[in-house]
């Protein structure tokens, strides 16, 4: 008499071996997780830096930059010049679109530079240009003369 027909299949499935995953799989997973965390943090850091610059430009607040006194000084100068210009023209506030037209290109360049993670030297040059622009606008207001830029 034959055995019940599913016996062989059932036995085959019961005989399926169990394998241990390789010993280094968990350490690999943890390493991979750390890499992904670092990537996420780097992406978040870039996003926050860009957002803080945009916010600073929109709200006219100085961006705290650690480790580069020249850049901090340029930003402080920028804030001082903005205040002076604001007094002369009755203030420019609100969104970036309300900035004096002459400032917009350099502000866009600044935002782009922060987005790219540009060097301090490049950022400093852009802040310097912005300050020169503000200075020129103030001179124009004070003397009533037109400034011609080349």
């Amino acid at each position, binding site marked *: 008499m034959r055995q019940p027909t599913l016996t062989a299949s059932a036995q085959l499935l019961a005989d399926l*071996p169990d394998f241990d995953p390789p010993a280094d799989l968990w350490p690999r997973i943890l390493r991979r997780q750390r890499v992904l965390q670092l990537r996420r943090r780097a992406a978040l850091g870039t996003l926050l830096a860009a957002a803080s610059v945009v916010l600073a430009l929109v709200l006219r607040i100085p961006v705290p930059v650690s480790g580069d006194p020249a850049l901090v000084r340029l930003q402080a100068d920028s804030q001082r010049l903005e205040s002076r210009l604001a007094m002369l023209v009755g203030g420019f506030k609100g969104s970036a679109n309300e900035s004096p037209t002459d400032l917009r290109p350099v502000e866009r360049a600044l935002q782009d530079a922060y987005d790219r993670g540009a060097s301090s030297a490049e950022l400093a040059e852009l802040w310097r240009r912005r300050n020169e622009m503000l200075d020129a606008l103030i001179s124009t207001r004070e003397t009533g003369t037109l400034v011609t830029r080349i």
Partner: protein
Amino acid sequence: MEMTTDSSNSASGFAQVIDAETLARARRGDTQAHTVLYQRFGRASFNLALRVLGNRAAAEDVVQDVFLKLLGAIRSYRGEAPIGAWLKRMTVNAAIDQLRAQRHLEPEDPERLFEHVAIAGTLPDDAHDAMALLQRLPARARLILVLHELEGYTHKELAVLFGQSESYSKSILSRALVRLQEWLQPVPQESDIVELRTCANRH
């Protein structure tokens, strides 16, 4: 690769219970608690993936994918379902994704699925190696067989998983069991096959 022959460990692996304190620590990001989760469920996840995919590297990828997802989502885990069931579902989904990526889940038609599967008498020497025999089934049939027979999925759950009717998985399971039986007992009698089909449909 170290091997044991007690398959019951793997089958019940996802059913293991994790104490509330370990889960709480895991939710807080405690790496030791994460390691405990891996020690409890990593093997079950690996074996389920290996049986379905038949490839060690692919199974490792599945386990990595599953545990990275777990580590990313554990903070929001509130214990609505046992964590083992959650991991099992993630393993199944990751394995299916792998099969789909390799285009191993086609065709859907149960008749065509077994068209090119070796028949009895044409198998090579490894025919009595359980793992090798399982791998000779079409991927879709292997998946259904493993999920139903070893992981306790019901046909209703399989219907949801495949977006098909319950009779779909019943049909494929029946054919898979018959084919296995033919390989193991090369000269089956007609009455055996009828009984097998009846048996598979009862599951």
